[in-house]
């Protein structure tokens, strides 16, 4: 049994009763990393020295009467697109291979206030562009359930490290499914909060109108605690929302009697595998047994979300990634006589193919003569997709469907064909376009690989998502299964 089989609230209790030290938790992390990291390859950078120092200081505090929050001493992993002062932050790109940030992201500052311990930085697809972690410049993280398959992406390292028991929990980021899809593939719980719930300050931007940071955990309860710690308005991010942050854990009542669930027929149709479809129908039965009611509905514009997403996210990326020019920070080409050559050569040598492809697509969609046909058209379609959701949420409390059309695929299987790879995110992308929150919770297995149930909520109603996910989790035991690493 691992210490990370306990929930945050149990570990907190053990610390409080002096039956456990923070150093025990931190050593548990590094011990497990020592055992399985050569197989999983989830980490890009470890922060061992500072983590041990911090554990020592927290253990001294443990012996005093000073107030200790619920997350006090808990070991966490961070996706490597969250900037961490004095700890290398690469976005899994050659262009930031030696980047040493000079400030901490807001979420990192909030974790410091909560007194968590950062274990290290986690692998991802380069600049969060990808669904498999195969686009990392450094390494391909493996799925702990089957080392031949991908962990998903882009927050693949964040999900794999939690599933493998290397950390208690982690943070990822989600632009088109990058928290929920890897959570589903790795059999853990991942939430994309409502756009604006969590500050993006210090998250290296991919697509600013879609990106959100969110928690990846073993249980729904832990997820609620971690979201609590990172939420809230931030003067450093003008798109963070000025709304109340409720007590998410108090929503975990187990009571879903009368909950109205909408199940979009488009989410169980073409392209969705039989095992995935069946796991969702089984999950609905479980929720029905708990007193919830469900009906089939339609989100008629779902099929257009993927095309709109790639135009919009790539357009925003092409602007955001213009800052990587080899001048102020990041990789600089040795081979440049003029400033223009310096830009071009640094970017061409520093970015991988997928990043270049999306910068090119975005530059094209925004270029003169094409703007109305592609970029503006996609923003109009975004309105239609958002209205689809608003119509459903006028009558229902949550929307339920699969997180992904299939379980995790084999490494190398989709890498040659961008469009097939993109299709993986077809069920997660619509939420990002609309800005809505959604969670993935384990709901079954197919051939030893985990499947995920996606629960979508109204704007800023993560509480109802958690209540539903928690009730389902407590009625099933999928979350108790562990990979046989």
């Amino acid at each position, binding site marked *: 049994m691992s210490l990370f089989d306990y929930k945050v609230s149990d570990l907190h209790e053990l610390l409080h009763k002096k039956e456990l030290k923070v150093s025990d938790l931190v050593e548990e992390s590094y011990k497990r990393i020592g055992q399985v990291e050569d197989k999983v390859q989830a980490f890009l950078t470890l922060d061992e020295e500072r983590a041990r120092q911090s554990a020592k200081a927290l253990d001294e505090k443990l012996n005093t009467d000073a107030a200790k929050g619920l997350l006090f001493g808990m070991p966490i992993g961070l996706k490597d697109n969250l900037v961490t002062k004095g700890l290398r932050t690469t976005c899994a790109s050659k262009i930031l291979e030696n980047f040493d940030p000079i400030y901490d992201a807001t979420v990192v500052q909030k974790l410091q206030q909560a007194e968590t311990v950062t274990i290290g930085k986690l692998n991802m697809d380069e600049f969060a562009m990808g669904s498999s972690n195969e686009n990392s410049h450094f390494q391909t993280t493996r799925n702990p359930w089957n080392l031949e398959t991908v962990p998903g992406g882009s927050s693949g390292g964040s999900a794999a490290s939690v599933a493998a028991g290397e950390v208690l929990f982690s943070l990822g980021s989600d632009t088109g499914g990058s928290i929920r899809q890897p959570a589903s593939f790795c059999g853990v719980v991942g939430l994309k909060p409502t756009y604006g719930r969590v500050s993006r300050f210090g998250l290296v931007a991919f697509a600013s109108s879609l990106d959100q940071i969110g928690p990846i955990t073993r249980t729904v309860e832990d997820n609620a605690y971690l979201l609590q710690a990172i939420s809230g308005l931030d003067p450093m991010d003008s798109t963070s929302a000025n709304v109340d942050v409720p007590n998410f854990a108090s929503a975990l009542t187990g009571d879903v009697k009368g909950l109205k669930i909408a199940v979009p027929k488009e989410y169980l149709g073409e392209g969705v595998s039989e095992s995935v479809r069946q796991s969702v129908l089984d999950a609905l039965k479980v929720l029905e047994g708990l007193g919830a009611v469900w009906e089939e509905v339609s989100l008629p514009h779902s099929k*257009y979300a993927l095309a709109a997403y790639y135009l919009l996210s790539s357009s925003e990326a092409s602007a955001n990634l213009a800052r990587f020019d080899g*001048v102020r920070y*990041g990789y600089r080409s040795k081979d440049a006589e003029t400033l*223009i*050559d310096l830009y071009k050569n640094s970017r061409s040598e520093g970015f991988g193919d997928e990043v270049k492809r999306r910068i090119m697509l975005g530059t094209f969609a925004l270029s003169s003569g094409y703007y109305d046909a592609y970029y503006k058209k996609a923003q109009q379609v975004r*309105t239609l997709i958002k209205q689809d959701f608003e119509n459903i949420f006028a009558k229902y409390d949550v929307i339920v469907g699969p997180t992904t059309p299939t379980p995790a695929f084999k490494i190398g299987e989709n890498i040659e064909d961008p469009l097939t790879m993109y299709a993986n995110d077809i069920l997660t992308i619509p939420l990002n376009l609309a800005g809505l929150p959604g969670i993935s919770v384990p709901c079954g297995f197919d051939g030893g690989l985990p499947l995920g149930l996606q629960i979508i909520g109204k704007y800023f109603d993560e509480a109802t998502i958690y209540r539903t996910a928690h009730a389902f989790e407590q009625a099933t035991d999928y979350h108790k299964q562990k990979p046989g690493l």
Partner: protein
Amino acid sequence: MSRISNQQVKHVANLARLAITEEETEMFTKQLDAIITFAEQLNELDTENVEPTYHVLDMKNVLREDKSKQGLSLEEVLKNAPEHQDGQIKVPSIMGKED
């Protein structure tokens, strides 16, 4: 019919400040063509009177007081600069040479 030509891909690469080889031009032309062709399914939808959504939340401009505060130190600013001299970031010549 192909929607994107090699010439267009080279033009876009230049706008994006990317140097691409002939081989990469071929690859990106093929792939971008497939993606753009896929994206053109959006034309099935009549969006004549639909307002674009640039931002999902109903947000207004966020203003703050115009007060100065401590910025970054020179040391911090130069910490990640690939080349610097006398407290300034160094780049190749900006004038001349460019065609």
